[in-house]
């Protein structure tokens, strides 16, 4: 990922302090030992009966499939000085725009953070900024590949999250049969966000 900025400052919710993190290519080994065997392991007993959908997503297998690929990128957010991974994302370059299918975009296919970072356990744990930084990375990657920063994704229909996307310039396109909302960040809004974050 040498072509993109990879250093991120996150807010450690428990201490209220900023911590340094780095966006890294997720290897199958790291995903196996620091996501698949860690994220949900300690929380099973405390979670509601119906687990969140990503409880069993095999990040090690996903990372293995994306390894060395030209079009799919699997990345993780690593807390500097540790092996902790506090977020992961799989995205594709060269997907079609929802609004104009001849325009190309980066598509965020999967993104997840550990249960500690999403209020599923009743403690002030985890980090803030992970989802934002991963999404910004997909936007920056779209920009340097000449796609203008265009990003598409299928958002879970939660009002506050949808508002997050809208605040960054995403437009809603349509709603799918499972309730997910097709959203797209178009080049003008993407570049405005990249500028606001000091990347271009």
């Amino acid at each position, binding site marked *: 990922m*040498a*072509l*993109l*900025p*990879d*250093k*991120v400052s*996150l*807010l450690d919710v428990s201490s209220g302090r*900023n911590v340094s993190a780095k966006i890294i290519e997720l290897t199958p080994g790291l995903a196996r030992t620091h996501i698949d065997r860690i994220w949900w392991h300690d929380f099973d007993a405390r979670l509601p009966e119906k687990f*969140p*959908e*990503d409880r*069993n997503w*095999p990040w090690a*297998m*996903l990372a293995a*499939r*994306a390894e*060395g*690929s*030209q*079009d*799919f990128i699997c990345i993780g957010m690593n807390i500097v000085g540790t092996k902790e991974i506090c977020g992961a994302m*799989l995205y594709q*370059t*060269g997907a079609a725009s929802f609004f104009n299918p001849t325009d*190309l975009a980066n598509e*965020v*296919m*999967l*993104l*997840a*953070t550990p249960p500690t*970072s*999403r209020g599923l356990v009743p403690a002030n744990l985890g980090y*803030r*900024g*992970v*989802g*934002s*930084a991963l*999404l910004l990375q997909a936007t*920056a990657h779209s920009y*340097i*590949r*000449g796609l203008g920063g265009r990003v598409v*994704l*299928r*958002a*879970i229909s939660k009002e*506050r*999250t949808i508002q*997050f*996307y809208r605040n960054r310039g995403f437009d809603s396109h349509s709603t799918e049969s499972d309730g*997910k909302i097709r959203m797209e960040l178009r080049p003008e809004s993407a570049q405005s966000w990249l500028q606001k*974050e*000091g*990347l*271009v």
Partner: protein
Amino acid sequence: MKTHLTLSKQEQEPYLIGDSKVVEQFLKSSPRKSPFPGDVLANHIHLLLELHPAVTLKFRGVKLADLDTQTKQSLLDDINAVLGIRPMKGR
């Protein structure tokens, strides 16, 4: 990148995108491999040329992977200038 600065306390940033169908489909797929394993610059230039067919290069018998890093970087700077891509700050 100071992402937390643009994230207000009221905002709920995304913590989950996608579903198990996407996972299944991706695991069944066979993504094509990068043509220049381990060479970030060569792969990036190759993909830029593929994504933007209007930009063409004549290598005159020289292979992209055989160019030294400085030459590849100059080539990339030229392609970026043609496509209007500004350099990314902070990398």
